[in-house]
């Protein structure tokens, strides 16, 4: 049944996030294409300004796509669980746990896809921009290739020692963030239902309350780590020592905190769905 729930949930939600990501890619490509236009050499400030505006639009779209997907999935969760559509969801022959797990998986996967899409859009923007410049100035592509080779040589510097562990911990933190981010959305909306007369307001309030608690926990944990970082002169590495092993530890600590918060919010949400469900 869990597989069927995931299948139908996926079918119900895939269109809007895909559309948002498609729009982001188109904006990235258009922003990259501005480099092929002669506007940058114009004497009139308006033309390069319009190019800058397009690049800024891409920047806004990168931020907006994640927010847009999160808001859409939050609204979808609320509608499918606590409005008229909830009458179908909660009368399916499945357990509250199966319903919740299916929602968590689908939302987390879309959060992850949204995050990956932002990186891909940067690639699209950069790739199109390089090709655009290369089409204008034939030597540009050669310059880029040489620059990339030089960047490759940086790997041998002490600065990049332990970078691979940093990379793995960053990916791990991103995955955990998708789960904990999803659980913040789900728990906020589920907790909001306890305020029977003001369910949406309750959800928004719960979101800010949960976020404040997480910020508080993060501050308590980060404070001694930050002090240690300062005393170790971690900021003064000047390319002679690597900061990445330190950040790897930091990311692991943050991941553990996010994971604990996500699991805690999951347990709370499941309890509320089992024991406090009250459809209008």
């Amino acid at each position, binding site marked *: *049944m869990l597989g*069927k729930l995931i*299948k*139908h949930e996926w*079918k*119900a939600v895939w269109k809007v996030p895909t559309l948002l990501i498609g729009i982001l890619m188109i904006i990235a490509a258009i922003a990259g294409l501005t480099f092929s236009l002669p506007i940058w050499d114009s004497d009139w400030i308006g033309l390069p300004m319009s190019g800058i505006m397009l690049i800024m639009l891409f920047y806004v779209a990168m931020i907006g796509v994640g927010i847009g997907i999160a808001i859409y999935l939050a609204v979808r969760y609320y509608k*499918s669980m606590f409005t*008229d*559509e*909830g*009458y*179908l969801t*909660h*009368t*399916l*022959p*499945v*357990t509250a746990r*199966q319903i919740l797990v299916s929602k968590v998986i689908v939302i987390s996967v879309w959060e992850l896809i949204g995050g990956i899409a932002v990186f891909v859009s940067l690639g699209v923007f950069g790739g199109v921009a390089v090709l655009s410049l290369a089409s204008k100035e034939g030597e540009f592509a050669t310059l880029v290739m040489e620059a990339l080779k030089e960047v490759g040589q940086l790997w041998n510097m002490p600065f990049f020692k332990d970078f691979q562990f940093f990379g793995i911990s960053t990916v791990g933190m991103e995955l955990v963030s998708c789960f904990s981010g999803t659980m913040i959305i789900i728990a906020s909306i589920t907790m909001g239902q306890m305020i*029977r*007369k003001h369910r949406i307001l309750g959800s928004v309030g719960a979101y800010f309350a949960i976020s404040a608690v997480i910020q508080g926990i993060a501050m308590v944990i980060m404070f001694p780590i930050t002090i240690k970082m300062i005393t170790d002169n971690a900021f003064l590495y000047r390319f002679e020592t690597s900061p990445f092993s330190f950040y790897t530890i930091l990311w692991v600590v943050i991941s553990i905190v996010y994971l604990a918060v996500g699991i805690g919010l999951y347990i709370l949400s499941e309890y509320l769905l089992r*024991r*406090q*469900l*009250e*459809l209008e």
Partner: protein
Amino acid sequence: MSGLVTINNLTKVYEKKKIALENLNLVIPRGRIIGLLGPNGSGKTTLIKLINGLLVPTNGEVRINGNLPGAETKSCVSYLPERTYFQNSMQVKELISYFEDFYADFRPERARQMLANLGISESAYLRTLSKGTKEKVQLIMVMSREAQLYILDEPIAGVDPAARDYILKTIITNYNENATVIISTHLISDIEKVLDEVIFIRDGKLVLHETVEDIRETKGKSVDAYFREVFAC
């Protein structure tokens, strides 16, 4: 006759101490069509929601086939809420596939036949259908299951008399004879002819649970007339 649904000391108190149901005890038998009747705010919908697990009781319990409301009971209860509850962005054929996936007792060929009889296209999106047509689609989906218990909350409210006849005909011709149908409505005279038993509820308390035949014989009145007498303002 064994009870399909057993309700023991069921109490539901909403916020601000509003008592919707108070110490309700009831045994609903198998193979009957039962009218759940009472004035507005009497607790009918609350009782239906509790049977379906959409509310959690403050006290007491509901058991269906001996089980508390959960995945097992939901697989044998077919529920029509008093509202349109399908996702508007779905097509009718997607709904059929949805029900087929989740309910082992769903009969898609029966649903398709009823849709065809009413001229409702399977390709139609729910958002393009009128409220009345959406309600008919909901009823078709609910009655295309071979459930043990059908719970229909106001199935004929807000539809024209011709549609009422169609809905009642659909209920009568599609329910499994070993199953029980609970119909909650205000329109008693329209459904009286199909009822075996009635349950009267007032202020969250059971007023009466009798067969229609007994009411006619002992009171010498129709259920509609008796309801008006009992609940006279």
